[in-house]
């Protein structure tokens, strides 16, 4: 993670209102946020060398689902923190019985606090960045 700059989060979701909501929640907490409307765009941004600290990946996207997007960028970014956001938690558990270190999931619908805590846990190992 770059020093002196807040963490950079990439939100990938095909639903624009979800992306905007997540961006606004995270920007309120001081994070820098980029958005991508699909898995292909997400992969392109990650392979483009952007210093992204955390990827928030919707699982249920057309064309490239979230887990496939992550699979495609894992070789280049094995250290990337990933928060899967899904309304179908069963599907994630079916395809990924075990999550990697640095990965977590958040079940939709979630509260603003739920999102803030999940992101903070992945980036800082605590429920709030302030309690580091």
């Amino acid at each position, binding site marked *: 993670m770059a020093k002196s700059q807040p963490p950079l989060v990439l939100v990938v979701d095909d*639903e624009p*209102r*979800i992306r905007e*909501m*997540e961006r*606004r*929640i995270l920007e*309120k907490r001081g994070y820098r946020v980029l958005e991508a409307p699909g898995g292909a765009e997400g992969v392109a941004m990650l392979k483009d060398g952007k210093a992204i600290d955390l990827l928030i990946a919707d699982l*249920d996207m057309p064309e490239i689902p979230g887990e496939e997007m992550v699979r495609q960028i894992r070789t280049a970014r094995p250290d990337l923190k990933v928060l899967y956001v899904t*309304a*179908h*938690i*069963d599907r994630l*558990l079916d395809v990924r019985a075990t999550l990697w270190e640095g990965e977590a999931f958040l079940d*939709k*619908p*979630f*509260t*603003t*606090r739920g*999102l803030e805590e999940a992101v903070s846990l992945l980036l800082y190992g605590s429920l709030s960045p302030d309690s580091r």
Partner: protein
Amino acid sequence: MTESNTVDVIHRLKNHIAIIVGFTELLIADCADDDPKRADLLEVQKAAHEAMAVMPEVARRAGMGER
């Protein structure tokens, strides 16, 4: 309704609830304690949280078998 249609409807419903919860909570965060809209927003938030709470039961009855 087929199982895949039911799953799709529940997925869309969960997205809608997530949007209602998220944007309502963003508004509440920007609302002063004495703002008369605050009580209304808290009612929307309460209803949305109640909708969140029944989603596992809805999914179970639809055969999605949430774990």
